[in-house]
């Protein structure tokens, strides 16, 4: 239960980024070339109004039952499922001309897939796009929740490869639906128990199962544990959409979201043991290993857009854009004094060789 094959598979497919069947459009870029060639033939925001209404109905149901997986008539998109078709349909159903749209693909705005989804929205829905989290009204994301605090004006649409957390313990969707209906999660607890027996603590890398509003067990999509606590009592709306499985679920603002854990084996976020971003020197962000052309492996902020801001201003807090700068958001929300002191030390030592570019897509 530590890693999800689907997750790996997804990453491979998307990053590999090439069509396997030549005569079928397989990527957003194919969709774009069609759209741009004959834009007049397409409805606003690409999808027809009926489809958008269906998706919105699903979204409303999902908001009414936080954490419950709501079926929706996931449309055949002219691109392979597993490329975020659920997320794209949800996004396109929500966007209006007033919106500002951002796409994150594993923390980056720059992957080909992210750029293409952004361009699709720009072309067909006539929206502004941005890479700045605080400027966006709708953000579609895969595998991350941004480091900067989301507000009540923002919707985060998460792409979901696998909807049901119970599939880890039982492959039968029918049996699992019954378990959800009756809040019968003892099988999941056994899996957690055995996980602790094996590792001494809970070892789940991503897709950490959470209880939503003390009612439904939910898969938060392949976000790191680092991001999981951001779902709890947030100001923003989170929508989770799976095209392949035709399910939408939601965490509305100010919903209790609690990671499953034992009283004496707590939920823990990733530890970076004093590591810092080699670009902006942050110690309070989710770091990933990046190997540069020189073959050296370094740690860098996974949230590329926030990293850029931190390069400009190393003391920028994650809630810098809010009136109240003390909003709790994920782990390591900085204590300004301690953090500033540490960052100054880092910069004095000259350890924070800030490199431009080299961003991993």
């Amino acid at each position, binding site marked *: 239960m530590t890693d999800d094959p689907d997750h790996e598979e997804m990453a491979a497919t998307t990053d590999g980024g090439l069509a396997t069947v030549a005569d079928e459009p397989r990527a957003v870029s194919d969709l774009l070339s069609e759209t741009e060639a004959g834009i007049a033939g397409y409805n606003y925001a690409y999808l027809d109004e009926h489809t958008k209404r269906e998706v919105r109905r699903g979204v409303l149901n999902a908001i009414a039952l936080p954490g419950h997986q709501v079926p929706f008539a996931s449309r055949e998109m002219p691109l392979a499922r597993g490329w975020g078709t659920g997320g794209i349909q949800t996004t396109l159903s929500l966007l209006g001309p007033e919106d500002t749209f951002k796409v994150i693909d594993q923390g980056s705005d720059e992957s080909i897939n992210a750029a293409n989804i952004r361009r699709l929205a720009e072309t067909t829905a006539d929206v502004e796009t941005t890479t700045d989290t605080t400027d966006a009204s709708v953000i579609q994301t895969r595998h991350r929740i941004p480091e900067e605090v989301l507000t009540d004006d923002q919707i985060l649409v998460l792409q979901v490869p696998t909807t049901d957390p119970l599939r880890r313990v039982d492959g039968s969707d029918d049996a699992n639906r*019954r378990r959800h209906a*009756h809040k*019968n999660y*003892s*099988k999941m*607890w*056994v899996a957690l*128990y*055995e996980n*602790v*027996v*094996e590792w001494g603590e809970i070892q789940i890398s991503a897709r950490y199962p959470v209880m939503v509003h003390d009612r439904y067990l939910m898969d938060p999509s392949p976000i790191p544990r680092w991001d999981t606590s951001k779902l709890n009592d947030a100001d923003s709306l989170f929508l989770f959409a799976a095209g392949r499985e035709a399910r939408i679920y939601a965490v509305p603002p100010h919903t209790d979201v609690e990671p499953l854990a*034992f*009283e*004496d*084996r707590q939920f823990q976020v990733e530890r970076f043991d004093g590591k810092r971003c080699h670009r902006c020197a942050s110690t309070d962000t989710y770091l990933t290993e990046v190997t540069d052309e020189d073959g050296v492996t370094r740690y860098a902020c996974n949230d590329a857009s926030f990293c850029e801001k931190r390069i400009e201003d190393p003391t920028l807090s994650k809630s810098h854009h809010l009136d109240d700068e003390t909003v709790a958001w994920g782990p390591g929300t900085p204590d300004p004094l301690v953090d500033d002191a540490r960052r100054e030390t880092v910069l004095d030592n000259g350890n924070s060789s800030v490199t431009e570019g080299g961003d991993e897509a």
Partner: protein
Amino acid sequence: MSLLDAENVTRFYGDVEPCGRCVERTGAEHGRNRCPECGMVVGCADVTLSVESGEVLGIVGESGSGKSSLAEMLALDLAATDGTVAFDAYDGNFLDANYEERVDLQNEHVGMVHQHVGDGLNLEFTGGGNVAEALLAAGWRHFEDVRTRVRDLFEETEVPADRMDDPTSTYSGGMQRRVQIAKAIANDPELVILDEPTTGLDVSVQARVLDMFRRIQREQDVATIVVSHDLGVIRLLADRTVVMRHGRVVETGLTDRVMEDPRHEYTQTLINSVI
């Protein structure tokens, strides 16, 4: 009132429309359990029995006589076709408990040891995980407490505790039976139902499993229904015995009396055939 009072418990099997006279056309006196009119199989019918607190009730009968059908209905694992059961921990007809009540009753009030191990245990889980499931389902959330209780239950049922983190599929048949018993008693239920607790085990293993259960039963004074086609098992464990044939109860009485002075012709042949 008894701990459990069952009246007219009945179970049909078959996709056919019942003719309405299935019960009167089957049973011990007809020598069949399939209705000649409509083809319905009457797994058991009109079973009336009671279990007192702390008592061990034996159910004995040949293969196909309806013992498992009855046991599973009383453990709320099988829907009844008809019947009323009063149970101490439940208001109303026990057999009508809804899903949530059932999960709760099964976790905390009625422990079942299934004839087929796959019905009672998840063989991919560890043995300890299977026992832990009962505790976790009952709301235990402290890992070390669960661990300690599971280890105690392993010791109680005489399963080597150093095997508790191995997959249940790697256990011997006897160990699997013991783990089922450990799981069944984990939450101190008022009633335990054992369906063929020794079937498929070596004779020497059978005796040790029975001795172990008899000790636990006495120490904890837990009411028990023990189902077996083996008179030896019934004689060893049961205070009172119910004899079934073709889905009906043909005789009920104190075990000693039934064994020494069987009244029903079928019971007589059953006992004579063993001696």
